[in-house]
């Protein structure tokens, strides 16, 4: 049922049960917020969404007030504007004001509001927060002084990721967002997904930056820098710059990286193919052994950490294949695939990902080989953008270049892995290629209805295989519980991504808070897929040749496998 409400002397339509803020925003009325997140329980913490309602003595928070028939609302009255300005001034009263040194300078919601509301000087003075900064995590850096207690990160961590690594500690003006016993993120249950970074309105939560170390490797005389570019990263840049597949986004990125000073630029799509192939082979092996339980994908390092901490009993069912980042890092660093032209220089691998958990993954003990780490640094899309600016490179004006040999070709499986549901499809297609042959086709049609179960059953060979995919730990855990409760044996493969929407919504993407962006990146990835001629890992002859080399010596294949173990953390 819909009815009319009156806003700033204009009648607008609202539906029953709708939140006032949603109605106002749908009609293009600007209401600033710092704590509101669509789809989450309203918190009313920042109070910036206040409006004046006729018949109410106090201002009301539109983010937590349902629309009512014939309500009369003013959003721009003197009283409302004054209240909002005061609210921002109070938020600024203990802010460190070090915008020049802040990661989020120019991209900070608090800064925007201060500018919009014409705040020229500090009006209120209060004690600065003295809580320690937290450098302990390999992925996430916390500066409590910049925190405005909007609780977006706390809600994402608890409601979407079920981790509760950060929480409100203490009360009143002493409140901080902190990890358990104020002990640092490294021993907390944090899974390094970086979703808290994505929702933080200020610079209180940012990633651990690898730019400095990459730049010193680029300019120094001891390293031979090699870039590994993930397909999800390419899809993200494509979406960000509104490129078409005909612009050859991967080629532009390669050209930019060559220009920045990387000696070689490789395609992580190559190792995505290996990863997909290894998982398809594992699936075939399990089907032959008639193992009823599903196998879970292993390419998402945040999901892996979650499993190690919270559901260690599931570790034995997680695929043992290394993630694409680690596979290619391993291939580059070992087996003499790449030799620096100058013998004094050491290989230095830098991966370009849409993820901050990859920074953590590279530091895992299993991901070193004979004491040498496979990946030396990981840069996110944000860091790449920053580097482009600092080098003064306009990516649109470059001529596309090709990835360097020998890791220059990837099938479209890599791009599929950049969004939720894609990897399940890629593994299904590859399994068909292994069991039948590379020419046969199967249909993998995901359910259209967004509410339905994300499952697809396909007949491959003599057996019907069930593929499922989940993204966001809350959704994943719910699905695991259902699988267990129903004792299902018809699902053989479950793709798990820790971030909602998969890597398209990853913690290393440009800062945004919308459900729209991940969808657009997925669309970009799907557009790019169509232009790739290699349709499955099995058709990737270059990759097949490499794998054959491994198969011929059984020991070596094991280096593409990894292991996980139960992790004791404060949880």
């Amino acid at each position, binding site marked *: 049922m819909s009815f009319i409400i009156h806003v700033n002397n204009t009648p607008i339509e609202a539906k029953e049960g709708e939140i006032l803020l949603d109605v106002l925003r749908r009609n293009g009325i600007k209401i600033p917020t710092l704590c509101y997140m669509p789809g989450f329980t309203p918190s009313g913490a920042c109070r910036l969404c206040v409006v004046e309602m006729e018949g109410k003595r106090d201002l009301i928070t539109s983010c937590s007030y349902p629309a009512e028939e014939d309500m009369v609302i003013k959003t721009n009255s003197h009283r409302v504007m004054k209240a909002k300005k005061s609210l921002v001034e109070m938020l600024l009263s203990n802010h460190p004001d070090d915008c020049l040194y802040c990661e989020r300078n120019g991209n900070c919601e608090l800064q925007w509001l201060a500018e919009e509301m014409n705040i020229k000087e500090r009006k209120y003075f209060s004690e600065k927060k003295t809580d320690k900064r937290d450098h302990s995590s390999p992925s996430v850096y916390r500066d409590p002084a910049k925190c405005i207690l909007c609780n977006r990160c706390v809600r994402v961590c608890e409601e979407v990721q079920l981790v509760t690594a950060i*929480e409100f500690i203490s009360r009143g003006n002493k409140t901080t967002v902190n990890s358990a016993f104020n002990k640092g993120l490294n021993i907390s249950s944090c899974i390094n997904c970086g979703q808290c970074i994505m929702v933080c309105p200020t610079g209180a939560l940012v990633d651990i930056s690898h730019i400095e170390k990459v730049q010193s490797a680029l300019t120094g005389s001891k390293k031979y820098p090699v870039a590994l570019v993930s397909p999800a990263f390419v899809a993200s840049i494509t979406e960000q710059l509104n490129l078409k597949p005909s612009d050859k986004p991967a080629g532009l990125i390669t050209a930019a990286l060559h220009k920045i000073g990387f000696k070689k630029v490789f395609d992580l799509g190559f190792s995505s193919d290996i990863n997909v192939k290894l998982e398809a082979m594992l699936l075939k092996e399990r089907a032959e052994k008639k193992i009823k339980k599903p196998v879970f994908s292993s390419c998402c390092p945040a999901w892996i950490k979650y499993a190690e901490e919270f559901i260690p009993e599931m570790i034995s069912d997680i695929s043992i294949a290394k993630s694409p980042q680690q596979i290619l890092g391993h291939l580059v660093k070992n087996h003499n695939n790449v030799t620096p032209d100058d013998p004094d220089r050491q290989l230095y691998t830098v991966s370009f990902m849409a993820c901050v958990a990859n920074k953590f993954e590279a530091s895992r003990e299993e991901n070193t080989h004979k004491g040498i780490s496979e990946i030396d640094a990981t840069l996110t899309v944000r860091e790449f953008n920053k580097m482009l600016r600092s080098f003064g490179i306009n990516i649109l004006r470059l001529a596309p270049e090709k990835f360097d040999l020998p890791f220059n070709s990837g099938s479209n499986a890599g791009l599929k892995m950049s969004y939720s549901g894609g990897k399940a499809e890629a593994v299904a297609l590859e399994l068909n290629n292994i069991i039948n042959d590379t020419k046969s086709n199967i249909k993998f049609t995901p359910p259209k209805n967004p509410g339905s179960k994300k499952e697809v059953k396909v007949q491959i060979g003599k057996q019907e295989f069930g593929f499922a995919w989940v993204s966001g730990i809350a959704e994943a855990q719910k699905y695991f519980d259902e699988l267990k409760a129903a004792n299902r044996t018809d699902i053989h493969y479950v793709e798990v991504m820790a971030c909602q929407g998969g890597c398209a919504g990853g913690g290393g993407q440009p800062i945004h808070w919308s459900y729209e962006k991940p969808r657009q990146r997925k669309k970009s990835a799907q557009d790019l897929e169509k232009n790739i001629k290699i349709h499955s890992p099995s058709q990737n002859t270059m990759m097949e040749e490499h794998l054959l080399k491994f198969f011929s010596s059984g020991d070596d294949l094991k280096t593409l496998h990894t292991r996980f173990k139960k992790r004791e953390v*404060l*949880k």
Partner: protein
Amino acid sequence: MDSKLTSIFARFPNKQRDDLIPMLHEIQDKYGFLSEDLIVEAGKYLNISVNKIYGVATFYDNFRFGPRGKFHIRLCHGTACHVAGSSNILSEIEKQLKISNGETDKYGLFSLEIVSCIGACGLAPLIEINDEYHANLTLDSLKNILNHYRENHNTIYEDQ
């Protein structure tokens, strides 16, 4: 489950979220404060994340995360005591014992807690040390009291 807290857990068979605060009270009554291990145990039992419990517990002044001193000083900071000069008493205690609200001195002898009102306004300003009230304090009498506890801490503690 084998745990130090089994006897306490037995009183909360439903394992509900609402059990958290009463359970924390019982743990604190038994062990004097909420240690990290005990919070982890309670979290495992109730299936609530440790950080959540820590957040709840730090919200309330009543919960402590370190051991109390042998002598726990509760200083009344209610209106009547405030008017009668409890702020001076507080700064004197802080100066003498080198501890502030919620802390325990390094000898484990004294700990300090500021409370809103003890309910003895006629005797303001006053402090309570291990259930013994010391009323109508002046800076001099406070010094004497603290010295008394300090010098005779062994005998006093045993008597109690």
